[in-house]
């Protein structure tokens, strides 16, 4: 470093946020053109954890691909496997017993709460508060214990089978779930009192990180991000699947379009998920968990099939183009975070870096799900 350094007043510099950066929660890279603390231009660069799950879906049989689906989003894995089994069941015309569908709904909602709890902790950590993460993880632990008891794993579940489930739930699980619900309700109230009302927290999120409804439509954003911008869209309500029409629950929608709205949507969603679990346990019918008639080899008839489900991050779609063989001809995944994240490039222009990264946290990114 010798010689004088000339600084022009209009000079910008490039800041490489990631692929290894504490704010990106994984291997996302954002190339930012900075003017001091302000972002002039941002460009997200993907591909650091691409594992070709879609190609794997094309050269393996349908059951062989099933475990891959839980490697997309490691926080809400059940939702993704749910999408896959529903899509294949629709394609192959497999009937699912009612009990299995109820158990699926209960476990998916438990997983959704676990995912949102982790997001809550990580989001507050993005804002510089460490303690809520520890509290959230402790609550999530109870849910993981429940899911471990029935699915056998804690993170990358492979619990659903085409036509039903891997194993049935027992009375212990039902009793433990019933015990966890009031505990979580209490915790949610506590989080509300500890975090939501905090003046620093509110000042950092209110009216900051605006994402308009138009922008959501332009990029195809779904899930809590779109619902925080006033778009009343939830696949569970708008394109009902599984046994969701049987449940009575609300879809929280906020019209503020800021980071705080997205935060509130997720906090309210946890409450709604608890309601669904309660009703599911109450209505849980007896019966088999696998259909009596099930094809040995799954070979969907020729055709083009699509199934969307509402995962913790938004609308997750699976498109299966079958040519009648045991492998899919085309296996396309529409992952919600991929669409949600691409709004970041446009939305963060002109923001300060700390507000932009707070907004990135409010998008709830899980990078392996973006890259697949």
């Amino acid at each position, binding site marked *: 470093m010798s010689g004088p350094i000339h600084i022009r007043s209009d000079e910008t510099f490039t800041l490489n946020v990631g692929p290894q950066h504490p704010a990106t929660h994984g291997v996302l890279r954002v190339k930012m053109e900075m003017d001091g603390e302000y972002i002039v231009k941002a460009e997200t660069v993907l591909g650091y954890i691409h594992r070709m799950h879609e190609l794997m879906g094309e050269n393996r049989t349908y059951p062989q691909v099933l475990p891959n689906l839980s490697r997309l989003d490691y926080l809400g894995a059940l939702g993704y496997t749910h999408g896959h089994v529903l899509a294949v069941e629709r394609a192959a015309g497999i009937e699912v017993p009612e009990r299995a569908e109820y158990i699926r709904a209960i476990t998916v909602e438990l997983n959704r709460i676990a995912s949102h709890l982790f997001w809550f902790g990580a989001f507050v950590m993005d804002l*510089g508060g460490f303690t809520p993460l520890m509290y959230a993880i402790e609550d999530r632990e109870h849910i993981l214990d429940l899911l471990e008891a029935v699915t056998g794993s804690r993170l990358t579940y492979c619990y659903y089978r085409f036509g039903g489930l891997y194993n049935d739930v027992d009375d212990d699980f039902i009793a433990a779930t019933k015990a966890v619900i009031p505990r979580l309700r209490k915790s949610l109230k506590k989080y509300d009192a500890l975090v939501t009302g905090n003046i620093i927290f509110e000042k950092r999120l209110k009216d900051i990180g605006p994402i308009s409804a138009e922008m959501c439509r332009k990029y195809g954003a779904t899930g809590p991000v779109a619902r925080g911008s006033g778009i009343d869209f939830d696949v569970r309500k708008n394109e009902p699947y599984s046994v969701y029409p049987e449940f009575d629950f609300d879809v929280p929608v906020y019209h503020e379009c800021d980071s705080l709205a997205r935060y509130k949507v997720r906090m309210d969603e946890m409450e709604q998920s608890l309601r669904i679990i309660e009703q599911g346990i109450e209505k849980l019918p007896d019966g088999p968990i696998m259909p009596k008639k099930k094809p040995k080899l799954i070979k969907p008839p020729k055709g083009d099939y699509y199934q969307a489900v509402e995962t913790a991050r938004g609308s997750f779609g699976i498109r299966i183009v079958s040519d009648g063989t045991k492998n899919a001809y085309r296996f396309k995944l529409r992952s919600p975070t991929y669409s949600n994240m691409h709004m970041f490039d446009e939305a963060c222009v002109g923001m300060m870096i700390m507000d932009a990264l707070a907004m990135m946290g409010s998008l709830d990114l899980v990078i392996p799900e973006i890259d697949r």
Partner: protein
Amino acid sequence: MSLTILNALVAVVAAIAFAALNAAYLVWAERRGAGRIQRRPGPNVNGPLGLLQPPCDGVKLMAKQLMIPGGADKALFMVAPVLAMAPAIMSFVTIPFSDTIVAHSMNIGVLMIFAFASLGGMAILFAGWGSRNKYGVMASVRAVSQNISYEVPMLITVITVVMMTGTMDLKGLVAAQAGGFWNWNLMPSLSSPLMPVSFLIFFICALAETNRAPFDLGEAESELVAGFHTEYGSMGFGLFFMGEYANIVIGASLITILFLGGWDCPLGLFPGVWWFLFKIYVLIFSFIWIRWTFPRTTIYGLLNLSWKILIPISLFNLLLTAGLLKVF
């Protein structure tokens, strides 16, 4: 003559030992405290209650290689950690722990501590600029603007206190508050009814000056990785860390002396060094408590707080006190 030199040597060694011991064991206290707040044990493996953790950390840091990034300004890079630690230790020299325990009593002790405290900003600037890291530069620019804007309300508050007591000698400041908590500067008096507000302002400024959460914008890990000490490893990082904790002790001591009556007992009985230590550790614990409770502020929120709220209030308080001192 030789006796004075010996005295000075003992004083300096004692000041360094106190600073280093505090820096090491406050890290332990912080980690244990964070553990309590977050419902986890914290360090508990090395020694009883994890009390041997700080020496272990120290040995580890010292055994590591000191890496200097390519293209860094070597001189500034090496000077910065020392500059972070040295003024903090120097400030200990003037702090009176009790009537008799003081390394060097000065009639301008307050001024000297603030003079040394402003050097801390230099260390951060050197570290960020010298390590040639964009995150480092951004962090040091933040930290310096923060230090400058919080020194203003802090000094205005100190002027108010000095006006009331009529001395800049730290010992004199404590002597003026002797005789029970109703005499402390914290309490509102006829000539300065807004003293509790001053205390609050000073407390907030002390948090901001020591770069502690919720004002730790210079090392905001979710935005700037590790801020100004991103490129520092081994003992370079260790010195920054110790400097931070030494500064916390200085801040707590200053609050104690200026507002809480130093070594004076709340009820006027048995004044002594234990009261001083008790008060500073209560304050330090509240620093730790705040750090693990609140999220971080934004840089503009921080500067707005200083220039739009704290400075006008402290200026108003100064004028009010000046006027009332004439009356009463």
